[in-house]
Structure formats: C-alpha cells, structure tokens
C-alpha cells in the first residue's frame, strides 16, 4: 500500500498539481464504471427511488403498507427465523470443524478444504433437488428413519426443512471463512497457558476465543446476510409457496398476477437496510476489538 503511494506522492510534491495529467489512463476506467453503473448502481437507484413512489406522488405509503400487513411481516419473520437458525447452526458446526481441521495432517487438511470448496458450489436449485432425494417425502433417509421409528414424518417443504437446507449450504461457507482465522492462534499460547495452570477449556475461554471472536462474529454476519438474500433453494423446493422476503419480492415483479414493482422496491429497501444495519453493527464491534486499540 505505502509502496504504491509513494511515487504518486513524490510526483505530486515535485511538480504543480495537474489533476487531469493521467486522463488517458482514466479512459481505461470508463467501461468498468459504465458496466457497474448500468447493472449495479442504476438498478439500486431505481429501487430506492421507487420505494418512496406512491400512486399519487412520493411518500412512505409502501412502507406503511408493508409494516401494517401481517403477510409481509410474516415474510420478514420467516426469513429472520430461518436465517438466524441456519447461520447459528452452520456457524457452530463450521467452528467445531474448522478447529479440528487445523489439527489434522496437512495432506488430509488440503483435501478436506478442496472438498469443502466443491460442496460450497452445491447450492440453489441442485441442492434443493439433492435434498428432496435424501430427505424428501420418499427420500432415502426419511424412509430409513421412519423404518427405525425415529420420526413419524418429516416435511422438507416446511420451515424446519428450509432451516436444514440453509444450514447445509452455510457449513462449507462457514468452514472456508473461519478456517484461516484459526491460523491466528499460536500453538505456544496453549502451551504457555497450560504451564501457567490453565485447563483446556480455560485456554479456549480466556485466550483463544477472544482472539478469533471478531472472525466468528464476522462470519456469522456474512452467513446471516447470505441466508437473508437467498432465494433459489427456497424457491426451487417450495415453488415459491413458502413466505420468505426474497420470495415475496420476486413474486411482486415476476409473478403471474399482481405485479407491483414499487412495493417490491420498498420491500427490497427494507431488506437492504436490515443487511446494512447488521454489517454496520459488525464493523462497530470489530473496531472495539483489541486490534484496533
């Protein structure tokens, strides 16, 4: 970083400032900016503008409508419920897995990381189908468990089923995000704490967890945001019949009936604000962690 800055700084000090000195170089940024504007900034801008666009002039009518409607409130609650549960469970499994992954021989570790990487690609529609095969009404595992008498029936197409499938796609992401964080743990710390009289759990509680806490929290936020914005698996599994916030947004713009893009925009703004809020809290907590002090 510093290295890259110095020549520019030296140049700026050496001659009079000419802000457009590199205008030809700047031309190379134009296609980049155009594409980003057309396919990311413009649609986002449209969404923000139209969320406050009522039938008769600007106003917050759509937001009031959403907040007053039990249907949309339920969509938010369902999305939050599934996202929180799946991020929590996924994070826990990933945490235990990543901690152990660091303790197995290098070759095995590399193979498992590569495998995890591949399964992280199994998401969306293909994942939904895979789950139907395993734990659908006539899935192999459902039949097995039913035969053993462990379950009466399992509804993959319900809240519980969605939690399960979301958790599944959170695990590889969690492992891949958390695994590098464990490299920050120095083996000597555990030994030093043992010599100072600490038990294994005391080491984890007092020494290791505080070090990796920011990474754990950051991973949780990413998993949560990922789950809140997810659409394909739920849509493929329930053909859009489960009331999630992303399913609602999509059906308001591409459904067969009741197209209400402005309302979809308002829902989108609420969803995005929620994600921004969560990320900001994460950033604030991160700043309070020991490294920043």
């Amino acid at each position: 970083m510093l290295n890259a800055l110095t020549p520019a700084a030296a140049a700026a000090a050496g001659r009079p400032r000419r802000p457009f000195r590199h205008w030809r170089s700047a031309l190379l940024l134009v296609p980049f900016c155009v594409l980003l504007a057309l396919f990311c900034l413009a649609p986002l801008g449209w969404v923000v503008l139209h969320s406050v666009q009522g039938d008769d002039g600007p106003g917050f009518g759509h937001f009031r409508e959403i907040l007053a409607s039990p249907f949309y409130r339920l969509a938010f609650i369902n999305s939050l419920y599934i996202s929180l549960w799946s991020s929590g469970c996924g994070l826990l499994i990933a945490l235990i897995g990543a901690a152990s992954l660091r303790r197995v021989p290098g070759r095995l570790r590399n193979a498992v990381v590569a495998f995890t990487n591949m399964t992280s690609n199994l998401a969306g529609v293909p994942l939904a189908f895979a789950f139907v095969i395993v734990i659908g009404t006539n899935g192999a595992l459902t039949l097995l468990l039913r035969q053993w008498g462990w379950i009466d029936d399992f509804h993959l197409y319900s809240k519980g089923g969605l939690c399960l499938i979301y958790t599944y796609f959170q695990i590889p992401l969690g492992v891949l995000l958390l695994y590098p964080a464990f490299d920050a743990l120095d083996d000597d710390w555990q030994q030093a704490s043992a010599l100072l009289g600490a038990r294994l759990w005391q080491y984890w509680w007092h020494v290791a967890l505080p070090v990796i806490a920011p990474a754990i929290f950051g991973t949780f936020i990413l998993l949560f945001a990922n789950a809140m914005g997810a659409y394909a698996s739920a849509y493929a599994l329930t053909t859009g019949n489960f009331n999630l916030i992303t399913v609602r947004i999509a059906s308001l713009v591409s459904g067969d009936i009741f197209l209400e893009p402005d309302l979809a925009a308002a829902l989108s703004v609420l969803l995005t604000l929620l994600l921004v809020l969560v990320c900001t809290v994460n950033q604030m907590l991160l700043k309070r962690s020991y490294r920043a002090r």
Partner: protein
Amino acid sequence: MRADLYHRLVVAALVALLAVPVLATLAYSLAGNWGATILPDSFSVRWYLQLWHDPRFLSAFGHSLLISVATLLLSTLVIVPAVFVVFYRFPALDRTMNLLILLPFAVPPVVSSVGLLQLYADGPLPLVGTPWILIGCYFTIALPFMYRTLADSLRGMNLHDLMDAAHLLGASTPRAFLLVVAPNLRTGLMASLFLSFSFLLGEFVFANILVGTRYETLQVYLYSVRMTSGHFTSAIVMSYFVFTLVLTWFATRLGKQESQA
C-alpha cells in the same frame, strides 16, 4: 494421541455430513428404479444417456457456457486494465474501489433484479429476455472475486519498480504492462476465472427472473424439469456438479501455484 483421534473423527464427520447429499444424488442418478425403498433396486446409466441426448438440455448447457465464457471474457478485458490503472496511476482510488466492488456482493440478486426488470424491460435498452442482460449482471457477480485477486497480485509485486525498469529499457507503458506485468497476473487471474465460472454456472436468480425460458440456461432448465423423473434430475445435478468439481479443482491448483510463487 487421544486428541489426534478426536480431531480426525470431527473432520471425518464433517466430510460425511457434506457428502451425504452428493452421494445420495449420485446413487439416485445411477439407480434404474428406486421407489419407496431405502436402497435402489438396480443400477444403470440410462438417465445419463437420456440426458446427454436431450436437445433441450444440450442447448441450455450451451447457453450457460456461452454466457459464462462471454462474461469472463468481458470481465477480463474490462477489469484487468482498470485494476492496473488504479494501482499504477490512481492508488488513492483503491479504497473506493474496494467499497464499490462490495456492492454487488452485499445487495441480494433479488433486489437488483427488481430494478433491472423495470429499467431494461423497454426504453432505450430493451435487454430483459436477452442473454445480454445476464452478461451484464454476471459481470457484477465476477467483479469482486476478480478485482480482489488481481489487486492482491499487484500489491504483491513491486509494480512501480517493474514499470520503471521496463521504461528504462525502452518499453512504452502499454508494452511494459503486457510484457512485464501481465504475465505475473496470469495464475491469479486464471484461478479467479475458474472460480467465477463455477459461480456463474450455478446462477439461478437473475436467469430465472430476467430471462426465464426465453434464453434457457442450465439452472432454469433444471428447475423446469423438476416434475419429471427424479433420476433424470439427479443425472443433471451430478453432471453439473462434476463440471464445477473440475473447475474448482483447476482453481485450487492454480491458487496453490500462486501461493508458491
């Protein structure tokens, strides 16, 4: 030794957990008939034969490949010079760029597609329903990965020293970039391209909402045949999975080369 065993068991459990859906799908795709029993009755490859002779599947797969390759070509042509210019001429911009490339990452595709659908349904740019809009959207999906990887490579080399040395030896800036800097970016770029490729092949939201069956991609096709035989869909899922497996394998191999270099 006891701790060692525990860690191996945990890792094995993790792998088993992640492998269950994959293995089940594989078994299902190879099963001749698998009704309401726990294990299949017989095995055959006929679902794969049927799949690879289905013109609709082949055309959807072709569409997906075409769109992905076009996107990655466009992204390479646009992002590589942009990153270079940022690092060489406007290093102060790097912070802004890092925030900008987070946007497509942070905004769920469902949200962007609300705006895209309205903006490009008609008017001066009637892109909805055409593959062009997907190429644009997929550019934003590939952007964060590619920018990050390229920026890391550039940060890791002495860009200004390399360029100065090439200039002193008589190369113009574009030639210096092509002959001196670009070869150093190659492995990183390839790794991020393979990674993005597997992401793009799995993309469903944009494809379904913005284009749908008007230019059917692999995922949309997969969704639309959900009512046909489960064995058949399993064969599609496995074909797709093996394909991405190869892609990620290439990506990790290149990534390893990068870290060794």
